């Protein structure tokens, strides 16, 4: 099981799901209509490191974070 957390303005509770890579996370989130507005503009971190490909493997206990568009300052 991995956990998927949604940062900042995404109003969604943390999920737990079975996933061997980020492809599996992407498939699960595409089923969720609420997420449609976010998938194209979120960055993704695994265990707090940003990643650039869905091929990123996942293992039990990993934390996946979705980071929507930012505006600090």
């Amino acid at each position: 099981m991995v956990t998927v957390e949604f940062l900042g303005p995404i109003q969604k509770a943390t999920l737990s799901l079975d996933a061997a890579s980020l492809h599996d996370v992407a498939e699960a989130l595409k089923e969720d209509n609420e997420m449609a507005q976010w998938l194209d503009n979120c960055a993704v971190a695994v265990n707090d490191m940003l990643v650039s490909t869905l091929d990123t493997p996942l293992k039990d206990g990993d934390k996946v974070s979705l980071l929507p568009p930012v505006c600090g300052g």
Partner: protein
Amino acid sequence: MLELYEGALNVPEIITRWYAEEAEYNYGAYIPFIGTVREEDGIEGLSFDVYEPILNGWFETWQAKAESLGAKLKMAHSRGDVLVHESSYIAAVFSPKRRVALETIEKFVEDFKASAPIWKYDLRHGERLYARDRSTAISGAGILGAKR
């Protein structure tokens, strides 16, 4: 050094303390950048969410880059509500030389705006509204939405 505060920053305390902290390290240039909430479009203020683990990593990468130039960075940011004419952000560079200081503060502040995991909300009639139109997708965003 990265400092996070609940609510508005105490700008005089922070910028004078940082000056004093580095007074003996022989830096020739100190440039703080201070960001203040503007009164516009009738907002009462702004509010911020900060995701600290990734912010720390981003800041440490920048600190290493600054150190390789003989410089040092400091930053302070607010969480939660900051009212108009209060300040929410200070970034500062110390450097032996002015050119490095001027170039570093500019690049640091611009990358901060593009990359730091901080989310901004307008405060309007007591509501907290995501400032989506002023926000920037982080470089590399969108992989989850890509077609297989």
